[in-house]
């Protein structure tokens, strides 16, 4: 089992997770699916010998962007409750 098959399986996982992120009705769930897809992308970058890009993807794509989405969602939620 070489690294190629591992990468192909993880790409399939990212594909399924991105479909779930688009098709799920709940916004919070789709933000979490996007974060999971980002983490699996970081794993693929490690398999493809790109540790720099994997670190960037894990810190920025999976960490920071997710929390930006969360804060924006909370803000919209708060505005909705005020009205």
């Amino acid at each position, binding site marked *: 089992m070489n690294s190629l098959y591992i990468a192909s399986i993880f790409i399939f996982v990212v594909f399924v997770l991105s479909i779930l992120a688009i098709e799920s009705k709940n916004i919070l769930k789709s933000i979490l699916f996007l974060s999971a897809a980002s983490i699996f992308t970081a794993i693929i970058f490690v398999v493809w010998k790109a*540790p*720099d*890009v994997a670190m960037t993807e894990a*810190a*920025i794509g999976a*960490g*920071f962007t997710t929390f930006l989405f969360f*804060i*924006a969602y909370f803000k919209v939620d708060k505005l909705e409750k005020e009205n």
Partner: protein
Amino acid sequence: MKKFWAIITVLLILFFLGSGLIPDLKIYKQNNLSQKTGKVYLNRTVNDDSPFKEIDKKLYGEANDVENNAANSVTSVIVDYRALDTLGEVTVLFLAITGVIALLGKSKKNNRILFEKPNYILNASSKILLPLIVLFGFYIFIHGHITPGGGFQGGTIVAASVLMMYFAQNNYKLKNNRMKVLESFSGLSFLIFGLLGIFIMGDFLQNFLELGIMGKLFSGGLIPIIYILVGLKVSAELSNVVYEFMGEE
């Protein structure tokens, strides 16, 4: 009906893009770097037991004249060969953050998001974790030319510590004016080092410091200095984004 047309459009794009890409599978896996780069790059070696050691012997920990002496090739592409691109990238980041501040900054409805009252353990442990996370971020962008990592990753980790404080404590407030001063200081220093390259060596952002020994902390000339500046700038900018998104009291 709408989804049906969307799927048809996506399949058409797949057909045109995919049919154009089929013959190119040969370039994967048997990627021949000798068709892309020069012999000087290919024959660089850092170990004693290499077949090329008669041609170009450079030992890890002893060598001192491998082009820019950064052990991490990605870092040397980003900060040395294509440093002007990095300047543009930092400018794009700055413009986006300016847009965020202009949109959210003076809004009347921009009240602070408050969570359920955090318990004592979360409150105390976040204060213990804060210096450790900041230290880890600094470690990552100081060692960007030796190990994987660099300014952008380390800056994001430092900004993540601000994010953690905002989520754990309801009365925490970032001193955002200091962050703005830090951001403009590091951005200006980046430009000043580039201009020093013009005056001393003749080209923008050209290296004018000693290269040192590959694998040591003080090596690579301008690379660690510029990456530390980029890390400070990115951490200040992303902390400001968190501040603007969470809102002020």
